[in-house]
């Protein structure tokens, strides 16, 4: 079978024009599909970055909240109630809000301010500069060194700024695993300072973070919180809720889906049509092979080898191209939201397999129809 496969590949690759067209079609389609899905995946990942960065096991929130940045403040009794639930190891409040920072040059820069519980600092980031206890110092803020860091003019420990007419001072520099989606820098401070510096409504608590005594307690805690009219979601559930919001309620998901489908159709059409032309041009030769003694199954195998080879090479090139573009984009724009995931790659692979099957089907149908007698008859 190796010889027949080699024969099939030589027939394909020696037809450089057709082979290039096939490769280009599939590469382009895979590139578009992977890019689309990677961008979407990057957006979803960034949208739930706070959940990963804070790292709490359970988040208590208003059921109407769809993402971390648009929280609905909850009254204090939610925290007290959460602390009283059996199975809760500890429960802490956290504040998420937006503010404008006035920089030294007089310009304003929007920031996300995260207020950590004054006692436990639960959800604090890993510091790469400064000491965490300095957050309790007067006007102390910790800045996150991420893609947006330079928007605050690359502050150092001791740098000062103005936030809502209050003085702010950088006392630590932190690193988080994920940057946010909206391209604004992040500042951490204490809960009390956050609600003092940033104007807020009657209720101030954005979320309650819970750590259970054991994972078996989680369903009970969720049930108890639900009785109160709020929602308690595990990290994964909250991430999925945010993802579903972006997928189904923002138009973003459907747009990406449409673009992915269009890319798939483009790949399918180019590959299908080019392969069909390739088969048509070689139809008499396939007939001659049949006359000489090639079996139908061998001709089918030849076509499968050709389409599989083309699709795999095209897939590799497409993934390589998309990855290169994303890497280059991230070098130029560190906050570029795109990530290649195994799910994206698997999905693109499945779509490429469908393209291969479709192209093979077209070729196989035609080749099996040709009769050797037609070759004699001319």
């Amino acid at each position: 079978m190796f010889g027949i496969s080699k024969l099939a590949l030589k027939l394909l690759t020696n037809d450089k024009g057709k082979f290039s067209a096939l490769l280009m079609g599939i590469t382009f389609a895979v590139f578009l599909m992977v890019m689309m899905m990677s961008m979407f995946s990057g957006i979803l990942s960034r949208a739930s970055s706070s959940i990963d960065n804070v790292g709490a096991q359970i988040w208590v929130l208003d059921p109407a909240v769809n993402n971390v940045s648009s929280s609905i403040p909850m009254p204090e009794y939610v925290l007290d109630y959460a602390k009283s639930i059996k199975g809760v190891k500890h429960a802490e409040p956290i504040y998420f809000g937006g503010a404008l920072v006035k920089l030294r040059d007089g310009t304003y820069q929007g920031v996300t301010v995260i207020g950590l519980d004054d006692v436990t600092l639960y959800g604090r980031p890993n510091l790469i500069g400064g000491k965490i206890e300095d957050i309790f110092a007067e006007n102390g803020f910790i800045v996150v060194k991420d893609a947006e860091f330079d928007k605050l003019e690359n502050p150092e420990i001791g740098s000062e700024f103005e936030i809502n007419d209050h003085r702010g001072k950088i006392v630590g520099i932190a690193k988080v695993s994920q940057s946010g989606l909206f391209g604004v820098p992040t500042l951490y401070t204490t809960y009390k300072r956050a609600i003092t510096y940033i104007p807020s409504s009657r209720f101030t608590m954005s979320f309650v973070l819970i750590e259970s005594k054991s994972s078996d307690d989680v369903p009970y805690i969720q049930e108890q919180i639900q009785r109160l009219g709020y929602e308690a979601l595990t990290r994964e559930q909250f991430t999925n809720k945010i993802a579903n919001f972006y997928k189904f309620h923002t138009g973003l998901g459907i747009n990406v889906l449409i673009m992915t489908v269009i890319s798939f159709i483009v790949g399918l059409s180019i590959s299908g049509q080019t392969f069909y032309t390739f088969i048509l041009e070689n139809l008499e030769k396939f007939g001659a092979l049949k006359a000489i003694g090639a079996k139908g199954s061998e001709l089918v195998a030849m076509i499968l080898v050709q389409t599989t080879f083309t699709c795999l090479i095209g897939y590799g090139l497409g993934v390589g191209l998309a990855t290169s573009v994303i890497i280059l984009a991230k070098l130029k724009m560190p906050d570029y939201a795109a990530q290649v995931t195994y799910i994206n790659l698997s999905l693109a692979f499945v779509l490429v397999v469908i393209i291969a099957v479709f192209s093979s089907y077209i070729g196989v149908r035609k080749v099996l129809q040709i009769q050797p007698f037609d070759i004699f008859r001319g």
Partner: protein
Amino acid sequence: MEKIALRAVGMNKWFGDGEARTFAVKDVSFEAKSGEMLYIVGPSGSGKTTLLSMISGILEPNSGEVFIEGSDLWKLSSNDLADFRLNKIGFVFQDFHLFSRLTTVENVAIPLILKRMNWSEAIKIAKKYLDIVGLANKAELPPIKLSGGEQQRVAIARAIVSQPDLLVLDEPTASLDGDTGRKIVEFIKQNVLNENRCIIIVTHDDRIFEYADAIMKMEDGRLLDIERVKYEK
């Protein structure tokens, strides 16, 4: 004693049914002997190619039997028939049907590759056969770089590379000028034909009749007669 290479008995092929039924070949029986070059001749539409297709296992007759080496060709399963063609019959098509994307030697090696021979071994043997047809120096060229006569010789090398007992050629001189055509047939007669091989040629080119051992005349699907002649070099 003369060995019978092929025996066709009561071959019939028709197209259409009822009043529309048209016979392409009607009640043809004949024998072809090993070591002889048999021509099937006749005007266009006389059923030559249809008969050639039936006796070489390509077109199933409506009735009749074809025996090669004792096997009734049309009693074989389609896979066995394909194997039989691959191992016992060599084909030279009117338009050669060489793969332009392969080199000349790779074209010749195709039957061996289909027989699951190792690629490099197949190429090695194919080179020997290219040498036999005098094209060893053109082994790595694509067929489109060769003249019509050279392409015909490549097609012959491909047909004999698996050492078939029966070689069938469909209008081998149709795409060639008179002189080249004669040279090709003379070459086949002198270098390809041997005592264990039978060659059947469909042609209407009377310039090559002089090389025939037997000429089978057909008209309107019927066999008129077989004339066995003596070829003299």
